[in-house]
């Protein structure tokens, strides 16, 4: 079994930064990622085994990535520091054991043979990132409806265009690069439907002053949208998706200033073959809860890890960086990853630059303020349930409908998300509630109420952090019989 000073899970902006920093501080590091190469979702790029001259096309902060990649390669195989980092790509963590000292990660290959089934480490930095938050819409289960991040991944890593005539919808600044990427790849982007209104954050003093690069990005996107003649429609939502075997058209609605559907406005349908949805992001919390770390609810109603100003959780030796401490983007994630690595090094008794740590802490505080401003400007609209029908699919895996969820609450007396899940099965299928969890949790509580950690935590608990075969479980070595993962479903 492989032993390391530190295991870093996730090789996106936070994890790369954490692994490189820790290894440069002298720790031995295992860097585990389910993808085939480092970069995460944000820096997803074409297969490096088949180099392309336009590798960085559509990327942001790309030089940050190439810098981290160069340092990572030196730490893997460079003359002076070879072997400091073991990069374990194409592997997912399916179980994490908390040992008397340290952690044991149980890994499986995302496809093909497992190369490294266990990683043991004295400490652990979790950088699991997140994925697009989704809301159900009538017809959203039709092929041709995708998460905005999935459309983006196809473009950035594979140069594949998911459709020819697209609408990008939901809320948040991430809709802009997806629309721009599609247009640059030759798709006809017929509209961006933004549920919010830009009055909130584009002119926000905190937004512009706090993180200048974000304001610059917004200006770049405005120019791109103009060049490709992409209409940017605010307070506009997709209320229905129509088609037989795939998407053919979408129905639109206009929201009032309170986020409720206006019944006095009728908008024409759009003929499209691709719908890209994103309603902000949902952090991946299963490993955070598996080690027993405390969680809380962020401004955007996401469940996040509760960390101190050194990225420490309340579990000794476990740190979290990136979206899992609150969705805030790549720059913030890079800073948090570096700080988590400094904290792990410092807690392991190694000297670190306190000045650098303080500078990172200030940068992170600034990034957090900006993220909060952004989240407040792009809430899930209050009226998102207005356009659902009783037969609207909520859970894509189990094909649970809104009507079935309402039966669980109204007829059977379920008063919380966990009970709705037990009685109507949303979140019981392959994805274990990763996609429908937010919506199902909202549907379980009265309209207008905010989600609490006790609503979300039972849904984020996934003792198997990835599916595992019976054969793998039956033959996996355990470090000790007292070793444990935590079931926080109390």
């Amino acid at each position, binding site marked *: 079994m492989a032993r390391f000073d530190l295991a870093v899970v996730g090789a996106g902006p936070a994890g790369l930064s954490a692994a490189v920093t820790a290894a440069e501080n002298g720790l031995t590091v295992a860097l585990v990622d*389910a*993808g*085939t190469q480092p970069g995460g*979702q944000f820096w*997803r790029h*074409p*297969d490096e*085994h*088949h180099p*392309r001259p336009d590798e960085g096309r559509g990327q942001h902060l790309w030089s940050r990535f190439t810098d981290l990649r160069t340092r990572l390669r030196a730490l893997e195989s460079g003359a002076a520091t070879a072997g400091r980092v073991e990069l374990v790509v194409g592997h997912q963590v399916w179980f994490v054991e908390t040992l008397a000292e340290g952690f044991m990660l149980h890994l499986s290959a*995302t*496809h093909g043979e497992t190369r490294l089934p266990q990683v043991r480490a004295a400490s652990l930095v979790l950088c699991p990132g997140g*994925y*697009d938050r989704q809301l159900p819409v009538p017809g959203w*289960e*039709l*092929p*041709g*409806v*995708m*998460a905005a*991040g*999935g*459309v983006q*991944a*196809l473009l950035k*890593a*594979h*140069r*594949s*265009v*998911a459709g020819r005539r697209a609408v990008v919808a939901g809320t948040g600044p991430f809709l802009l690069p997806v629309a721009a990427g599609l247009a640059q790849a030759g798709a006809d982007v017929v509209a961006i439907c933004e549920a919010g209104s830009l009055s909130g954050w584009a002119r926000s003093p905190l937004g512009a002053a706090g993180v200048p690069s974000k304001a610059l990005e917004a200006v770049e996107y405005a120019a791109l949208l103009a060049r490709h003649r992409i209409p940017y429609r605010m307070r506009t939502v997709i209320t229905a998706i129509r088609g037989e*075997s*795939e998407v053919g058209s979408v129905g639109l609605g206009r929201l009032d200033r309170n986020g409720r559907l206006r019944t006095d406005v009728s908008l024409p349908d759009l003929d499209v073959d691709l719908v890209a949805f994103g309603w902000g992001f949902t952090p*991946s919390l299963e490993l955070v809860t598996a080690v027993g770390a405390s969680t809380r609810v962020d401004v955007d109603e996401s469940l996040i890890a509760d960390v101190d100003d050194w990225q420490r959780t309340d579990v000794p030796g476990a740190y979290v960086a990136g979206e899992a401490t609150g969705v805030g983007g790549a720059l913030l994630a890079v800073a948090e990853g570096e700080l988590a690595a400094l904290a792990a090094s410092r807690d392991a008794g190694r000297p670190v630059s306190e000045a650098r740590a303080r500078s990172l802490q200030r940068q992170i505080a600034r990034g957090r303020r900006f993220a909060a401003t952004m989240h407040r400007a792009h809430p899930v609209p209050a009226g998102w349930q207005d356009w659902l029908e009783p037969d609207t699919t909520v859970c*894509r*895996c*189990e*094909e649970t409908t809104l009507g079935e969820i309402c039966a669980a609450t109204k007829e059977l007396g379920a008063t919380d998300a966990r009970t709705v899940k037990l009685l109507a099965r949303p979140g019981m*299928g*392959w*994805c274990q509630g*990763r*996609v429908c969890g937010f919506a199902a949790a909202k549907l379980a509580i009265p309209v207008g109420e905010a989600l609490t950690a006790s609503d979300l935590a039972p849904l984020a608990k996934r003792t198997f952090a990835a599916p595992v075969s019976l054969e793998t479980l039956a033959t996996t070595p355990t470090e000790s019989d007292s070793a444990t993962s935590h079931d926080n479903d109390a």
Partner: protein
Amino acid sequence: MTDQVNLTFDGVTITAAAGQSVGAALTDAGIRSWRSTRRGDRPRGLFCGIGVCFDCLVTVDGRPNQRACLVPVRDGMRLESGGLREVSARG
């Protein structure tokens, strides 16, 4: 120019660029669904595109339930559409 690989989807040959995912290869071939759901028998293909949603499950070289968005293409790869895994009797 990138390397091309050939693979089959339900017996029909499609080409892809080396390094692409199975999901991208199918997308480029104009194929948008390759699985039907258990309860409603509805078509599914890529949704999240990053390994989270399990909507894009496909049989790869006889191994069922592989996430098309995560598996890289390989020359000669056999892809099959379908639904649930069949468990062999007395395997």
